[in-house]
């Protein structure tokens, strides 16, 4: 059974649908339920949007999305060739502040981190970014 899926695409807003559809289809094939998958979609969309708008400054660039199942973990990877930026260092937004006073981009990363069990960043050997997102299959429901 296939446990790893890969999409090579261009980091453009118009491709967000393609990226989400790819993650959804792959995660469904891996047997995950809709609720679980929805959270993975949130994380991928938010982080891919940041790569598109901030990483590549809207100019486009390569984006690789990988979906993999390792034991109980669904692992998503986003690889780009943009300048190194670690979104995990952004502080959590102050949700008591009115939205217009919150820093740009903080909300999306927060939502992504709320949706996954782990989010890791590393700089790749080519000087780009790799984000690894992990979501653990939930335990037996009572």
């Amino acid at each position, binding site marked *: 059974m296939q446990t790893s899926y890969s999409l090579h695409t261009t980091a453009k*807003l*118009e491709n*967000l*649908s*393609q990226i*989400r559809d790819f993650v959804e289809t792959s995660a469904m094939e891996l047997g995950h339920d*809709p*609720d679980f998958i*929805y959270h993975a*979609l*949130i994380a991928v*969309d*938010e982080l891919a*949007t940041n790569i*598109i*708008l901030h990483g590549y400054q809207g100019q486009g660039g390569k984006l690789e999305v990988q979906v993999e199942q390792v034991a109980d973990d669904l692992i998503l990877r986003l690889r780009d060739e943009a300048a190194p930026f670690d979104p995990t260092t952004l502080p959590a937004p102050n*949700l008591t502040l009115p*939205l*217009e006073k919150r820093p740009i981009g903080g*909300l*999306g990363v927060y*939502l992504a981190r*709320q949706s996954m069990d782990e989010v890791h960043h590393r700089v790749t050997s080519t000087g780009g970014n790799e984000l690894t997102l992990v979501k653990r299959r939930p335990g037996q429901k009572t």
Partner: protein
Amino acid sequence: MASEFQITVSQQQGRVPVTVFHINGDVIDANSFQQLEAQAQAAFEAGTRNLLLDMSKVRYISSAGLRSLHSIFMLMRADTPGESDETMKKGLMDGTFKSPHLKLLNPSSAVTDTLRVMGFDMFLEIHRNLKEAIASY
């Protein structure tokens, strides 16, 4: 294939006229939110002061979509002398404030979850029924 993002507009009459945006695109994300905002702006300029967003076909909303809900919320209060910022802030803090001008109809449970995580249910009413939504304005 990206789905078409389309908004169908209907006018309803409760105690006050209410413009309803039936959002036919299935996502409000960084790629589609501007259309929603532009349409809300156009409606406001045409005189709309009470807006209901029919989210029943929306499968997914990202933080970009949430920001646009907030922009529209701010837009719809731009013309209301009776509602002070202070009153709103106090109401938000103690959970009593809900926008009288912008409400949501039938978001899916997944979308409702996102709204709740980001605190949007604090200031936007969520209705499950069109008639009841219109009557609430």
